[in-house]
């Protein structure tokens, strides 16, 4: 109970500080939503030039980008701030976090609560709902569960990628933008049918890391399409399992990393 109150105090302080710069807060919120707006806009622009990308129509592509954006926006709002870890490691601020009697990861997440990212989550789910509406989906109980579970599984998956990428700073302080290749890169990767990528690039990102299960496979299962790449129809229902697997890897990497941490303070 005391712990919860402590987290509440951390969160409350964040909210008050965000509200004291109201104009900046509103601009940031709009700009943040803009990122997802432009992702969807890009898909629409590309489809002006072609009727199909990687064998998928505009409606189907919207379903894929909707699933991916919803999962990513949720993860970015809840866990995305962990990518500031490299700043804390470099500046030695992490020491202050470690001496407090609360676990480090939740504290880090509450050190900068991104209320500004809420509008983006709403927009991503609006796109998803729109995409579900324009596609002719043959609803079964299984698909109903799937359409609800997929954004949540995507969120867990992206959150794990955020944590793993950030943990890199424990070993390599100057890792700079490398994490972005997998977090924001992963968002871009999952926004399109994975049929557009060539063999080794697809094998690495889609199957070895597991990005195929964020949006592409679930979208196939929802649409009732067979996978042109040969995975069976039930592969789409594996996305929660892929999310759990990635979460356990992330938890392990985080634990090893934080034990490996040596303060840079003087």
């Amino acid at each position, binding site marked *: 109970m005391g712990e919860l109150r402590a987290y509440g105090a951390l969160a409350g302080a964040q909210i008050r500080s965000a509200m004291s710069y109201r104009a900046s807060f509103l601009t940031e919120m709009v700009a943040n939503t803009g990122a997802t707006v432009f992702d969807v806009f890009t898909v629409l622009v590309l489809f002006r030039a072609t009727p199909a990308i990687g064998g998928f129509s505009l409606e189907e592509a919207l379903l894929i980008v909707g699933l991916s954006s919803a999962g990513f926006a949720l993860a970015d709002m809840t866990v995305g701030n962990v990518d500031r870890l490299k700043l804390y490691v470099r500046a030695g601020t992490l020491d202050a976090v470690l001496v407090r009697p609360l676990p480090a990861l939740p504290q880090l997440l509450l050190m900068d609560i991104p209320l500004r990212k809420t509008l983006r989550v709403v927009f991503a789910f609006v796109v998803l709902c729109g995409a579900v509406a324009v596609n002719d989906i043959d609803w079964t109980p299984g698909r109903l569960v799937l359409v609800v579970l997929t954004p949540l599984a995507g969120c867990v998956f992206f959150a794990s990628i955020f944590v793993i990428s950030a943990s890199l700073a424990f070993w390599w302080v*100057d890792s700079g933008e490398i994490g972005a290749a997998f977090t924001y890169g992963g968002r871009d990767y999952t926004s399109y049918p994975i049929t557009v*990528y060539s063999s080794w690039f697809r094998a690495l990102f889609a199957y070895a890391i597991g990005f195929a299960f964020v949006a592409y496979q679930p979208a196939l299962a929802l649409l009732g399409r067979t996978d042109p790449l040969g995975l069976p129809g039930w592969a789409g229902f594996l996305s929660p399992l892929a999310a759990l697997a990635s979460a356990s890897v992330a938890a392990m990497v985080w634990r090893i990393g934080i034990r490996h941490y040596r303060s840079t303070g003087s």
Partner: protein
Amino acid sequence: MDRIDARVLTISRNGPFRGSATTFGALIGSGFRRYSTYRQATIAGTFTNIVFGFLRCYVLLAVVEGAAGQQPAGYDAEQLATYVWVGQGLLSVIGLWGWTELADRIRTGDIAADLLRPVSPVVGYLAADLGRALHGALTRFGGPLLAGAVFFPLRTPTRWQTIPLFVLSVTLAVVVCFGCRYLVNATAYWLHDARGPIMVWTLGAGVLGGLYFPLRLLPEELALALWVATPMPSLLQTPLDVIAERDGPLLQAGLVGLQAVWAVAVLLLAGVVQRRAERRLVVQGG
């Protein structure tokens, strides 16, 4: 360290041309050296540029597959691949993202030190930014281009004037980009916290600059309006169209001319904004 050089460079706004040129050169050199100390970040950044290069290239090539005549917006597959990979290389040359130095110095009050210098902040920061761009051109441009050339067929320029025009276009793009970033950062003189405007810039520059997709994919009137009415296409779209040889020589030269107009315009505007800010500035910090 037994000999200390106590000479001071002649720095005077009204002084002879040579003095100003030496100062400007020295500031470029210091900008270059500053960035050359972040070697690991250079490697990490190149890796990330390459990953995004693959992502964008595959998607655009998939668009070519499905497009009528396999030429979306007048680009063939090789031109689009060139567009993507040269674009990934140019990102850190023009320095599209991540410059918050001026805004940070305004917020903390450090800007006071810049105002004491005998060089105008716009000129001083421009010189440092040119040094940064030079460092970017030498270290960050080659990696993505090489990766692109290994994995995708790229277009080799067929006209002799393409390469010199490209170099000129990139230089102008650096200046336009600097001017825009200066203006965005300078909002901190009025707002104290420029995070919002910087985010809007980060977002808008990518889309409207031509990074996410070539602007020619937009309806023609819209693309034209962007080109003439905003400096955004001068950031990436113009140099990339030049190197991909999307248009005839005359039109290309015209687009680079438009870039030059924008470079002058944003620098002048930055100068005006800076002077206005100096008149109302209350330096923060104790």
